[in-house]
């Protein structure tokens, strides 16, 4: 009998361990995100507007910022940067534009997801404004200029002389429609 209750105790603890590790698997998601935000691991950028707070413009240095665009699978838009690269002083505000065109015969919604290489540089690129903060709708057969206003933190390490900002454009039309339908039904 003592044996039985002893068995139960161990089984209970082991099951607790199993449940804990299952939860830990999911906890890795927010942990990973927090880790990436803190370290710039993976080249993610802060996906929100930042006010200009640089203390000075470092005229002694110039950093090359290159622009790349990709279309995710099944995305028919034309999407490209208007200039391939710019040279900026850390602390200086720059405005660049991207060209997007919807060649299809229907209204579509897109979402651009940014990524920065080298990953370390992502901590120092601040966006004051970006088309990637929101979903971008385009009516059938129309085009648009999409702006990004950014500056580099003057604290950016010396060894970073070139960085690449790339955008992947995803078709979000289906999701956008789903949310609008949901919103209209709830408002009724």
């Amino acid at each position, binding site marked *: 009998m003592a*044996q039985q209750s002893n*068995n139960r105790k161990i089984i209970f603890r082991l099951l607790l361990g199993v449940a804990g590790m299952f939860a830990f*698997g999911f906890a890795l998601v927010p942990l*990973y995100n927090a880790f990436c935000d803190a370290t710039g691991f993976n080249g993610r950028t802060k996906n929100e507007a930042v006010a200009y707070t640089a203390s000075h413009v470092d005229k002694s240095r110039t950093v090359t910022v290159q622009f790349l665009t990709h279309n995710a699978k099944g995305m028919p838009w034309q999407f490209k940067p208007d200039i391939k690269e710019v040279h900026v002083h850390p602390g200086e505000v720059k405005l660049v534009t991207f060209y997007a065109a919807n060649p299809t015969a229907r209204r579509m919604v897109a979402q651009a*997801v940014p990524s920065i290489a080298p*990953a370390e540089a992502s901590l120092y690129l601040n966006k004051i404004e970006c088309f990637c903060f929101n979903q971008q709708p385009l009516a059938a057969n129309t085009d648009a200029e999409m702006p990004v206003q950014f500056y580099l933190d003057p604290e950016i390490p010396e060894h970073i002389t070139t960085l690449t900002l790339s955008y992947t454009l*995803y078709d979000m039309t289906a999701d956008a429609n789903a949310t609008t339908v949901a919103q209209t039904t709830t408002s009724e």
Partner: protein
Amino acid sequence: MSTTVDTLHHEEHHDHKPSGITRWLFTTNHKDIGTLYLWFSFLMFLIGGSMAMVIRAELFQPGLQLVEPHFFNQMTTVHGLVMIFGAVMPAFTGLANWLVPMMIGAPDMALPRMNNWSFWILPFAFIILLSSLFMEGGGPAMGWTFYAPLSTTYSNDSTALFVFSVHIMGISSIMGAINVIVTIMNLRAPGMTYMKMPMFVWTWFITAFLLIAVMPVLAGAVTMVLTDKYFGTSFFDASGGGDPVMFQHIFWFFGHPEVYIMILPSFGIISAIIPTFTRKKLFGYSSMVYATASIAILSFLVWAHHMFTTGMPVVAELFFMYCTMLIAVPTGVKIFNWVATMWRGAMSFETPMLFALAFVILFTIGGFSGLMLAITPVDFQYHDTYFVVAHFHYVLVTGAIFSVMAAVYYWLPKWTGHMYDETLAKFHFWASVISVNVLFFPMHFVGLAGMPRRIPDYSVQFADINQIVSIGGFAFGLSQLIFLWVVIKCARGGEKAAAKPWEGAEGLEWTIPSPAPYHTFEKPPKIEG
């Protein structure tokens, strides 16, 4: 209508005496369940092996001859899944069932009914997985590592079945692990202290904890794949704020400890066999225990060595590189202990010993190529080439599977009560050990030359080596039929085995008659010293 009634009557007549099958269906006996696990594992070994034969047949020549690329991808994927979750892991669970109670003087496993369940859900998992191959669109084709987005955006609908079958396999392993831990903690005979337990028991004890720690993480990963694919979540989808690289972190957090799950019990087997056939005590028993425990702990700190090419910061790459290399220290302790055990021993070379010796040499080769892969800068060359394939097959085939074969030959007299045919067994050994090296050794060279893994076609300059590899593969596959023959022959009859057929053997399992009676140690044995 009337025919149905007739058949029912017919069946009742047959059923009134309990037939052979119900013994196996409802058994709670650890020996029966061990046997079930071992036969199941062998069946999976043959099925997974035939998939490997398809792969090697396609790769016999450059170009596409026999199968479609999509089917080739299914073969590499399901071969991996079947061999890992169907062959290697159940083989070890089967050995644990047979041996752990007999080695610690327990009458059975602590949770016999759960034991029955943990085995009997396994066949369903594999029926689901294997039948998905015959679905429209085919089975899983994303590689056994099911990286997102291959398993989410680009996979077919058999993914749901894949996820479900992995869940069942996970539940089965977790139940098995709980059973092993409870048995070892609560059912040791009086006097069987932890530091007197045979190494096989120790290694399985630690393996069971690893299973409990990482199988739930695998379950979480497949669940996220399932919800990403079917329920609109974006764990691994960048357009929804997720990250496909995160999949690799979660997967390898499970994946690296998983490789130790598949090798630690081998260490226990080899630590039992080498002392027997050198007629000496195992050198450095306690260092073996501590080495096993440190390997298990370190296994949680090295996962990203599978991901050096994903673009990690240099600091992280260095951290994972050094931690990985650190594992060579406790592993080296083990290898040196085995060699020291053999030093000046009165060695004899029966088949279990031959497999154990082959294990020590060939597993070490796999360990060395692992060290090479751990070096971050050169990993960029080796990554996703046949060098990696060569590495993990040395570790898993000439490592894990050779140890299982050594174990089967070593304990077969105890299980069946007969000696196996030594000549035939030696023939099996030499056929296997030669063909396995013809199969896997040249893969190192095509890998270094740049042949990518998981691709059904290759450049012509790799043709000669691939032909040699394929011939080795067919020979290795056929050699395993000799193994089947030896085991069946031994189960059916042969020279009577003594209670202790190996003169140098030590341990409680050799104090009971051969074949081991259905119930053993109902009264706990006395342990001297």
